[in-house]
């Protein structure tokens, strides 16, 4: 089920192993319906999330990028998501200057027990990307 009625778009999700990947699993086990545009890449921690992953994904044809990790103060490694928050906020703020809508990239926090919140995040972000439509084209 795609959020839009038209074709599926391509969204890349970078999820931390300890919280959000578990949260996505909880959502699945609880049979909470989700749009299927998202492809998930599992990271050991959002601290592993190089902002260049996001740029690389957008330049390689992704229409949106979602990063999700443990809530601040709940990081499995204590502080990975604190560093990630600064880096990702900065990268998000650079996007409009390059001609990408900053709504194509979001970062958020979902814990392993928050299956319902995961469903909300994926549904809202997928709808947002469908509103923006396919990413800009590189060929002239």
């Amino acid at each position, binding site marked *: 089920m795609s959020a839009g009625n038209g074709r599926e778009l391509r969204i890349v999700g970078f999820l931390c192993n300890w919280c959000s990947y578990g949260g996505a699993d909880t959502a699945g086990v609880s049979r909470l319906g989700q749009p299927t545009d998202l492809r998930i890449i599992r990271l050991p921690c959002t601290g592993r999330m190089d902002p260049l992953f996001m740029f*690389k994904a957008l330049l390689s044809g992704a229409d949106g990028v979602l990063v999700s990790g443990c809530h601040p103060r709940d990081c499995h490694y204590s502080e990975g998501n604190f560093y990630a*928050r*600064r880096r990702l906020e900065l990268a998000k703020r*650079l996007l409009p*200057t390059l*001609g990408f809508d900053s709504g194509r990239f979001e970062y958020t926090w979902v814990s392993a027990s928050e299956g319902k919140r995961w469903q909300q995040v994926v549904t809202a972000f997928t709808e947002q990307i469908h509103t923006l439509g396919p990413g800009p084209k590189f060929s002239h």
Partner: protein
Amino acid sequence: MKYVAELKAKIREKLPELDVVIGWKQGFDPVHASPAFMTTPEEIEQLVVNPLCVQNLATYLPGLKGKKVGIVARECDTRSIGELLQESLIEREELTVFSVKCPGAVDLVKLRQQVGDLGRVRSISFDGPRVTVETPDESSSLDLGELLPGKCRVMAYDEPVLADFRFVDPDQDTVCREEADTDLVALEQMDLDERFAYWRGHLDRCIRCYACRNVCPMCVCQDQCIADTRDPHWLSAETDVRQKWMFQLIHAMHLAGRCTECGECERACPMDIPILTIRRKLNREIHELFGYTSGMDVDAVPPLLTFQPEEKSITEREW
């Protein structure tokens, strides 16, 4: 500049304690100065300081770590030195900074737009804000203010970040000034599609010569640069604009919170791509988010290497 004789005398005095002193000398033609690596008193005689001395010599410092190095630096160049010291890429005790009052700088692209082919210039001379350029056909008098590189128009430095010896010309005012960042303002007035087309058009001209990276004082990975490695394979050899764009983003993101806006990347670019604009934008955002300006404080903690459990300036999205 009036202080040049005094500067040469001081370098001559200090040279026995130093392995090399980096300055500028006349280059291969009247409009170019080139970096000078002075190890003998004769070489010190070649030293010049004028608005054609555009290179940020701090670029050479990390490669000379372990040697006793003297460097002639303008105020803005000392900001790069400050950043290198902050990152422990160079050692303060190995360094002697001969800080000179900046005589202004000439953007050769702007000079070319004014006088045409630079190969035809027979002589160029400076008298305060006036620049006199002689070609076989004509003699033109130009305003130095009109020839300044973009970086001299958006940030003014009256004093160096650090200096062992300071040389000033009492008659001379600070040339650089703090005006609106016209490139960035123009870009921000475009809509998203126009900005995308702007960068796609500019970056498509990139020839991936990596001059911007090689000249950058903060690009110190050298052979370890991820733009060159096959593992991880960040970039392929394709000539596609996406590869070029990605390369520029690698450079910009690796400079986030570190770039001292010396403008060497843009100056060295043989295709005149306005790549400094991306770095300036990142610096503006870092200043807004974390109140931080790179290179100005040797003891500061870089904003991306620290955090606050509650970030006052970051508003996270509620879903």
